[in-house]
């Protein structure tokens, strides 16, 4: 069978040259077996247009750098085969994130901000002893932590989220998923109230309208609907007084949300 002749339309704009209006450029491309969008972009840059800007590092769906809108859907370029796409392929940069140029956006600053805002690290008073035997964890808990941990922070869920597209402060599925990861981790000593402070709000779990574009488009196929619903239920249970504790010690009985815990 003869190889298809593809037409690749790419969004072109350099914020550093505002006098040049945003435009779409078209490149012809002969399809090869097993061709990914990652290869297409690299060959276009090498052979057709050296000014094309896009991100990639690992080419194996690990780094999350090459996320972009491919024919309307947020996808990783390295994980998207041309085979499943029509002959005409349109590439746009991810919305929500700051545009660097053409298909390149700054997801790093966004994710760092969110990490700091939700304090996305283990909060523990235990002193680390490098000589001690590692603490054990049951397999079920380990798997429940591992599932959200697979997030590569590519930004596809954020770009696909209608709420994140119109509300600048909405934290989105990647963030809520990340908080869920700490909520199930027995090493994290944060109280339900402290999680409520972080995520039990309109910018967090209560801002989600359930449009599920995050769940539909996650390249890592993390069960985001489940993660979002889990956090929403936990936060509602705490807010309504039903989630008193998790068996951890030193937990205040009546933590008032929105005020500092004394």
């Amino acid at each position, binding site marked *: 069978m003869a190889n298809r002749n593809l037409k690749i339309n790419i969004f072109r704009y350099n914020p550093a040259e505002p006098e040049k209006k945003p435009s779409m450029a078209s490149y012809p491309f002969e399809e090869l077996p097993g061709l990914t969008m990652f290869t297409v972009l690299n060959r276009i840059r090498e052979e057709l247009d050296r000014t094309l800007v896009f991100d990639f590092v690992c080419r194996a769906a690990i780094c999350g750098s090459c996320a972009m*809108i491919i024919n*309307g*859907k947020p996808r990783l370029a390295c994980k998207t085969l041309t085979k499943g796409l029509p002959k005409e392929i349109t590439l*746009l940069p991810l*919305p929500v994130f700051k545009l660097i140029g053409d298909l390149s956006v700054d997801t790093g600053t966004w994710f760092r901000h969110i990490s700091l805002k939700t304090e996305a690290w283990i909060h523990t008073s235990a002193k680390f002893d490098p000589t001690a035997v590692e603490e054990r964890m049951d397999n079920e808990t380990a798997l429940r932590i591992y599932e959200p941990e697979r997030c590569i922070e590519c930004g596809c869920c954020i770009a*696909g989220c*209608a709420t994140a*597209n*119109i509300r600048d402060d909405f934290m989105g599925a990647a963030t809520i998923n990340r908080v869920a990861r700490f909520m199930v981790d027995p090493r994290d000593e944060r109280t339900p109230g402290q999680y*409520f*402070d972080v995520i*039990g*709000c*309109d910018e967090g779990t*209560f801002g*989600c*309208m*359930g*449009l*599920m*574009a995050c769940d*539909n488009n996650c390249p890592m196929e993390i069960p985001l*609907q*489940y993660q*979002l*619903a*889990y956090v*929403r*239920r936990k*936060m*509602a249970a705490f*807010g*309504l007084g039903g989630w008193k504790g998790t068996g951890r010690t030193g937990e205040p009985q009546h933590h008032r*949300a*929105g005020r500092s815990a004394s």
Partner: protein
Amino acid sequence: MQVQRSIARNQRMELFLDMAELVSGLLLVGFLWTHMIFVGTIIINPNLFNALAAGLDRYYLSYIGIPFIIVIFFSHLVIAGRRIPTRFQEQKIMWRHASMLGERDTWTWVFQAVTGMAILVLASIHMWVVIENWPISAVFSALRVQRYLWLYLVLLFVGEFHAGTGLYRLFVKWGWFKRQSVFHVIETITVLIVVMGLGALWVFLRLGVRVV
């Protein structure tokens, strides 16, 4: 940090509003489906319809239920409506985003916002004309359907779409069941109710012809 935002911050209120959205939505779907089944009794027999209406009236259920539902109806408008973007730019982003993604759940949300506004107008007219010609009876209803047929046709479709989609989204957000199964169950119920509603409208139309 912005002082005004920190002072006005109330996360428990944000939770309360989310819960109020859930509860008011559930109550309205429950009401709408019950209401449609009650209306559907006209298909079986006008006397059954009359007896049901008279029964609800006699035991004051109409006088408790109707004001209650009106309050819930307008509360839901305010509570669920707070999610609707108000600025033109935001509305344009929503529309472009839905077109770009081409996903069912994003599009249905856009149509929910639109049908919500349509329901506000149409259901208000419906409530007004029903209460104005109290009590409810097959003859009055038949005359009403004959006069406002287009209103009822549109209201049936937008109402059921809005309620079904809203209920689906509640289940999605709270994650009690698998979302595809929930979708198919609600879709089936919605189609059945729309068919029943169309049947009821047809019976009312024919009754109307006989009465006039």
